[in-house]
């Protein structure tokens, strides 16, 4: 279109557009717009979330992981407690596809162990003549699936009579990979319980204190102060000492996690409170009040969303603390005990310098921990963006 503008500095002509004018005209909506127009807020958020590929991938990864912990008996090549006394501290075994240039499918070489009596080290050597093809959907260690029915089908097993330790074995000859797979069960569930408890408490209490202020806030603040003053380790020690001896270790651990959750809300509550102290002065809060909204609604619908990013970040960042929380407990001799295992336990088993020096494969459990933490964080990022109106 040509410009009606006069040359610079020249007087302005009177320009009138000749385009047709209809005050009632509206642009036709594209299909996309119609869809957006009818969608609910959740759906909108899902659409926005979908655009964040990494978050999506993380979400899928986590879903798969959680599905996996349901069937870990099947996925793990060995049982949690299967030992092989002939393969103590065996390093990871590589999976090969070609033997002497010929394709034979996935297989591992058999191994021979020699014990060096001078240094008391076990040395393992691949026996390249002993090809042990892996079996899939095969029969191996028997287990009781979810304590319900007997089975012995595994996704992958070593050749009959052979062994395959993809991530090596520990000091009792137990398969590290299988233990990692089993460990996920505890690590991915119990810790999250603690987070949930502390989050709910933190948001509710902090929200009420920040929104209402006054005497309630005063009391909550003092309670928080008191709770924050008690460091967790003495608490663990005392709690562990008074837990009835007859409770099973997993139950005790569960109880401690929940109690910790019950005590851990303070930091979050303070953050929520101080943020709300500021936010509650906003006009939109007043508007909601004048509509007759109850505090729960104002906190839940108006204030907390404004704080969502922080909450998501805090949640994702406290996940490692919860997954690994037991390592600190175990370190003090209070954590989970065999026969149960978790990633934290697997890691505490590697608590001497000699492991780092000689058996570094026992550090493998850090990898799933890192992956899970990354996944949760990227998922959190995606959620944050989905909830962000400015995106």
């Amino acid at each position, binding site marked *: 279109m040509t410009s009606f503008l006069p040359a610079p500095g020249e007087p302005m002509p009177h320009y009138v557009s000749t385009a047709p004018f209809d005050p009632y005209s509206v642009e036709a909506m594209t299909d996309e717009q119609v869809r957006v127009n009818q969608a609910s807020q959740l759906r909108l958020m899902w659409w926005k979330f979908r655009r964040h590929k990494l978050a999506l991938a993380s979400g899928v990864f986590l879903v798969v992981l959680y599905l996996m912990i349901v069937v870990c008996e099947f996925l793990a090549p060995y049982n949690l407690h299967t030992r092989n006394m002939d393969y103590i501290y065996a390093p990871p075994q590589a999976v090969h596809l070609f033997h002497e240039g010929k394709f034979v499918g996935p297989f591992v070489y058999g191994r021979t162990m020699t014990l060096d009596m001078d240094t008391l080290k076990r040395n393992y050597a691949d026996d390249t003549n002993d090809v042990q093809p892996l079996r899939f959907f095969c029969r191996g260690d028997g287990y009781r699936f979810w304590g319900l029915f007997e089975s012995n089908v595994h996704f992958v097993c070593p050749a009959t009579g052979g062994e395959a330790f993809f991530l090596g074995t520990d000091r009792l000859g137990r398969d590290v990979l299988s233990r990692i797979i089993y460990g996920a069960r505890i690590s991915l569930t119990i810790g999250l319980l603690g987070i949930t408890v502390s989050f709910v408490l933190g948001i509710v209490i902090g929200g009420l204190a920040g929104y209402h*202020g*006054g005497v309630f806030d005063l009391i909550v*603040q*003092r309670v*928080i*102060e*008191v709770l*924050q*003053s*008690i*460091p967790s*380790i*003495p*608490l663990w*020690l*005392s709690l562990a*000492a*008074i837990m009835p001896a007859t409770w099973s270790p997993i139950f005790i651990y569960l109880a401690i996690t929940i109690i910790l959750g019950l005590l851990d809300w303070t*930091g979050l509550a*303070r*953050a929520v*409170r*101080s*943020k709300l*102290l*500021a936010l509650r*002065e906003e006009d939109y809060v007043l508007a909601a009040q004048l509509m007759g909204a109850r505090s729960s609604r104002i906190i839940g619908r108006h204030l907390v969303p*404004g704080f969502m*990013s*922080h909450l998501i*970040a*805090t949640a*994702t*960042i*406290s996940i*490692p*603390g919860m997954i*690994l929380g037991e*390592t*600190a407990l175990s*370190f*003090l001799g209070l954590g989970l005990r065999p026969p149960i295992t978790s990633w*934290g336990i697997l*890691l*505490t088993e590697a*608590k*001497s*310098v000699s492991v*780092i*020096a000689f058996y570094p494969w026992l*550090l493998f459990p*850090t990898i799933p*921990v*890192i992956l899970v*933490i*990354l996944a949760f*964080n990227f998922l959190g990022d995606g959620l*944050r963006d989905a909830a*962000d109106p*400015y995106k």
Partner: protein
Amino acid sequence: MLRYILWRIAAMAPTLLIISALVFTIIELPPGDYFESYVAEIKAQGEGVDMEQIEALRKEYGFDQPPVLRYVYWLGGMLQGDFGYSFEYELPVSAVVGDRLWLTILVSFVTIIFTWLIAFPIGIYSATHQYSWGDYGLSLMGLIGIAIPNFMLALILMYFANIWFGISIGHLMDQKYLAEPMSWEKAKSILEHIWIPVIIVGAAGTAGMIRRLRANLLDELQKQYVVTARAKGLSPMRTLVKYPLRMALNFFISDIGSILPAIISGAEITAIVLSLETTGPMLIKALQSQDMYLAGSFLMFLAFLTVIGVLISDIALAILDPRIRLQGRSTK
């Protein structure tokens, strides 16, 4: 404001009182007492003990009296600056703690500074360069830092620091400097050692801080007042620091109260693994052996730090945000 501060300080007294009662309960909670664990420890080493001697000691220290009375004595003592007696060391608590307190505070402060120095720039960078490679990379590093348990990080760092740099394993300094007064050499040795605990203890906090700072900043960066600041011609950095960062600091400041105690207690495991000359291992040991006055006084010290921290945090919050400072007065 002044009145508020005075009032807050006055409110600390009852809080501390309640805390002291709680602390006492927590220490009392586990069955048995110091003498019990003392006997156990001695016996575990195959030595013999004279139970009657122990009984006599128990009387000596008033363990035949009801806990409430002992609590009152302890509290009374503390008010007079007497923090009680360590059974384990058979010395007054104040004598036992000695240098450890200063080293603890040193480590904690260095850690806090380290955390901030790293977390703030990275957090800001991550927020302003969301989804850039830098954002991903730095986040990744921080997250890996928290994904590895402290004790393991400690072992790994310690081991490789020894292998690669020849730094002696563990501790805050070469042990030959332990008994010596401060000197250039000693300071150097401390510097050589302190980075390991600082990195380990700081790792978790740093990552947490980066992520939360980033999240909070991302929320603020879009606000209209940021646009206004840009429209004034303020440079992006200055804009960020003066406006959104200050807003985003809310969460950070509200948490100041627990930073120091969190670092001190978060460092406990690390301190044990690294055998640092800080209060952490001593506290844990005291708790385990039920050396109750030692443990109790430590805990009260931590509590005191917390309470002071919360006070500072409340005041800082009021300075930071006038809406909080003038709450209840301005609008209602």
